[in-house]
């Protein structure tokens, strides 16, 4: 039997979490190194998978590195893992972020043991979501994530952390409940829990227990909470504002992508006809998310809250790309998920550094910090420019593909108008990003910030890694699109396009 790459990648962090939580007498130093080790190995393995992944178009749609074991025979549930062009980039995203957030958390010393245990468990659950091909397994991984998130926000957070943590849990559980109802209806309709089998057989060949559109929207709502889609977004600013930096990075970087991934993997792949029917509505919702999110972002006064709101706007492009239902727009949406993971992850990391080093988070109270923290200023600016879609950053490549794909899509009537409105979002984005950079870094240097620390070596390594990925994907997007497109081809053939 072959080596189980995916199981190893998924469960190594969990093993690390167990060791850190239960082995007695670990020094703080050792805990940090263990956490780094148990995230570095999955990262190395996922990069290995990236290198050996078969990109040939002949194999398009094939699931690679598959693992399948019988699990619960009575309901036909299997322990079934695998990655294709759609999920592999997200696995790499999470594995890389997983390692980087351990470095970002290096200076935490409050209840260190629990902190890293929860953080590693979180990584396992997100990786599991992206690899699971069995609906029950998928749901299980999806739910596990809530527990570490609750503790991470409510213990290591700031501000109204208990409120935000509780809001996050209630909101997510609401979405999950809908999703579970959707998965159950899907199971009772098809008698199968295998995503691959259901998609291949075609949902139309079964007698549905409830209208298919209802199943579609049950699942969609679950994912829409996570993405988030207007008007289900309000947990996000609170969770981000009050979460510790590393958790914000994972939340914005990888957790939100579970929503977009789920929409493509389940909503579009399993219900192509329904997706097509309701695409105009969902595309309109995407445009509202983009513009509404951007407009509200412009009014924020807290640096983390501002970045949080910008996520709503940027994830709107993902929704637009998905339900424009064209080859290019779907590739663009997938690339945007990866790109946003690094860009917004970096923005949160930088905001965290600024807040940590200055003890300030109100935008009105900053100014002139480029003098005191030149490295942070440069990297923050790069992240900001990437967020506003400057060419040579991944933000441009992804958003451009979404725009081109949506504008030229034939699946949705009148989508050109929606796309034009969505493009308008990038003008507002320029406004809030440049305003934020100016508020924080430019203008006369302020005396109260004299002696403020710039990034240290470890921090530099971390943030430069983010920058490198953003620039690499921006300058040579084919490094990812060549993989992503093999995952989108089967979706398109199901859509009949």
């Amino acid at each position: 039997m072959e080596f189980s790459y995916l199981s190893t990648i998924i469960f190594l962090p969990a093993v690390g979490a167990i060791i850190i939580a239960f082995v007695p007498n670990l020094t703080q130093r050792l805990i940090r190194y263990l956490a780094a080790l148990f995230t570095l190995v999955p990262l190395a393995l996922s990069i290995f998978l990236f290198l050996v992944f078969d990109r040939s178009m002949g194999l398009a749609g094939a699931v690679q590195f598959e693992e399948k074991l019988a699990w619960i025979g009575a309901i036909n549930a299997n322990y079934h893992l695998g990655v294709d062009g759609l999920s592999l980039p997200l696995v790499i995203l999470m594995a890389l972020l997983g390692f980087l957030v351990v470095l970002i958390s290096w200076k935490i010393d409050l209840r260190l043991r629990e902190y890293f245990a929860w953080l590693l468990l979180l990584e396992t659950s997100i990786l599991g979501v992206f690899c699971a091909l069995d609906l029950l397994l998928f749901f299980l991984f999806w739910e596990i994530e809530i527990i570490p998130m609750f503790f991470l926000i409510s213990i290591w957070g700031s501000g109204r952390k208990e409120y935000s943590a509780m809001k996050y849990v209630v909101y997510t559980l609401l979405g999950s409940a809908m999703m579970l109802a959707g998965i159950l209806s899907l199971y009772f309709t098809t008698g199968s829990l295998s995503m691959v089998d259901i998609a291949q057989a075609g949902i139309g060949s079964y007698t549905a227990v409830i209208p298919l559109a209802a199943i579609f929207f049950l699942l969609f709502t679950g994912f829409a909470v996570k993405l988030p889609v207007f008007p289900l977004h309000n947990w996000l600013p609170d969770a981000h504002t009050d979460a510790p930096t590393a958790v914000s990075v994972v939340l914005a970087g990888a957790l939100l992508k579970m929503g977009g991934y789920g929409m493509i993997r389940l909503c579009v792949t399993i219900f192509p006809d329904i997706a097509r029917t309701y695409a105009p509505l969902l595309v309109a919702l995407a445009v509202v998310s983009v513009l509404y999110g951007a407009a509200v972002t412009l009014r924020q006064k807290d640096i983390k809250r501002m970045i949080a709101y910008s996520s709503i706007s940027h994830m709107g492009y993902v929704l637009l790309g998905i339900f424009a239902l064209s080859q290019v727009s779907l590739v663009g949406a997938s690339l945007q998920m990866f790109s946003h993971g690094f860009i917004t992850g970096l923005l949160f990391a930088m905001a965290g550094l600024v807040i940590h080093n200055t003890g300030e988070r109100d935008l009105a109270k900053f100014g002139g910090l480029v003098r005191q923290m030149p490295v942070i200023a440069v990297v923050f600016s790069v992240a900001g420019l990437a967020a506003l879609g400057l060419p040579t950053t991944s933000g441009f490549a992804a958003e451009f593909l979404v725009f081109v794909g949506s504008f030229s899509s034939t699946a949705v009537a009148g989508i050109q108008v929606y796309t034009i409105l969505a493009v308008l979002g990038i003008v507002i984005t320029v406004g809030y990003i440049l305003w934020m950079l100016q508020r924080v870094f430019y203008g006369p240097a302020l005396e109260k910030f004299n002696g403020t620390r710039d990034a240290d070596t470890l921090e530099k390594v971390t943030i430069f890694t983010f920058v490198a990925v953003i620039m690499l994907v921006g300058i040579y997007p084919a490094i990812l699109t060549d993989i992503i497109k093999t995952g989108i081809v089967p979706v398109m053939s199901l859509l009949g396009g």
Partner: protein
Amino acid sequence: MIPSALIWLIFLLPLISFAVISLFLRPLLNHKPKLSGYVTVASLLGSFALSVWVLIAVMAAPGHKLPVPDITWVVIEGGITIQLGLIVDSLTAVMLIIVTLVSLMVQVYSQGYMHGDPGYHRYFAFMSLFTASMLGLVMASNLILLYVFWELVGLCSYLLIGFWFHKPAAADAAKKAFIVTRLGDFGFLIAILLFFFNTGTFDIAELHELALTGVLSGTVLTWGAIGIFSGAVGKSAQFPLHTWLPDAMEGPTPVSALIHAATMVAAGVFLVARMFPLFEHSTQALTTVAVVGGFTAIFAASMGLVMTDIKRVLAYSTISQLGYMMLGLGVGGVAIGIFHLFNHAFFKALLFLGAGSVNHATGTFDMKLMGGLRKVMPWTYATFVIASLSIAGIWPLAGFWSKDEIVLAAFERQPILFYLAIITVFMTAFYMFRAVFLTFGGEYRGGGPEAHGKPHESPLVMLRPMVVLAVLAVVSGFWNVTGHFGQFLGHGETHGFVEGFFGVLTHGMPWLSLILAGLGILLAYAIYGAKWLSAEKIGRLFSPIYTLFYRKYWLDELYEDIFVRKSLVGGFFAGLEYFDSRGVDGAVNGVAEVTIASGRAIRRTQTGQLQLYGLFIIIGVLAIILSLYFFG
């Protein structure tokens, strides 16, 4: 022929210079700032030499085109294919010469002007990156690549306007420039999407072909062309998106010379020229270009009349001259518009370097604090006057030849715009010589607060490039005296040099503009030179108009205060935010509160008394019986 690897190198050399400075020199050799200046100049020398080679090769090539193989960048089967490719034709060759030559001169000059600035490394790093992006822009063979470089030059402009970021005015101006040009780019991006949707290609040559054969036509062509033009309006600071350019003068003066006068702001004109076959096949689009250009020319000149900051005068002059170029494209075609771009690059860069030299001596840009500098700064004075004569369109300097062609073409095609253009000739001569007399004439009025000692001539490192540009400001126009420039960029007849040089004076139109320009200079002399007329009295006489010009038609207030601050951010967006926190979030918290409250209310019934529970059961049973009785 020139190997295509060397053509790529034209753009790669400054890019390498940027990488060397920012990754190697600045972190490791920070105490030796001069090195970064040398690296930049050396890379530009290389690029300039290669550009000359390209020009020669293109002139010799059949159809004035060099084939360069594409490099595949991104392919999505059944979707899009994006290539990295270069167009090397006559337009590219001319633009390469302009960009490398002016950039080279400006970088040499900067070594003196920026001497001792703590951001010396950063300055040359950005300047290198800018030059690389600008060179990429003029060579790009498809709209995506062009857009990429288009945004990158915008980024460099942002970084260099805000170079002295500790000054709030500089940071504000940088942000404004980025946002206003982005507004224009919005249209540009939509045009790219529109063309791709309708033709399936991003390739510029293919789009030309489709427009020529009529496949691309009608409303798609018109709206696409207007979208492209909106990008050009932003970049080239045409009305109504011109407001960012005067503020951009907060950047270092050599930056203004290179980016905000000679090259980047001309990119909009270049873009229209690059896509010209599309404009040519849409009368509406071409008329739009001509009207916006013609109007901007006189509109900006009117504000240039009253500014007291020398760089602002030059900034409005640039906007006005860019308007001329657009008008030239709209009424005359590529060769006429680009010929003015070519000449303007040299004399306007020179004017800015002159303003920088004056600033170096007096510590101010306010002309009210200057005066009398002709005696102490003879070289600056001489070159500045040459450039002023050139821009005023005095025979036989460069500006004369290209402006004459534009005016003539307007006369033939768009009579109303012709009158605007010819009045602008008078205004141009007036505001330029107003600046000359205020700055160099009369007696020295003390300079700015930062002036140290008496004013003095600038060092040779600054003067040499100015002299080179002064020579160009005289002779660059000679290229088309024979009609060869026009033939190179399009078509047209050529004739002998002497015939063209003097023959032009046998027509009426050149005399009309020469007389108007002469009158403009005379009026400036009368008011600011000889002081026959009092500037104050005239100002009072035309007080409302003066205020209108001086306050820039209140457009800044209209855009920033009324439109952005009060209506959008303070009005509509604030409303959305209120809705978000009270409406959406309020609903969520409301649901939570209702749940908790109803839980609290219902809890009261859970008293633990069996009698009460029994009562509930009886009520329930009664309800079932009654409902069965009535509905069953």
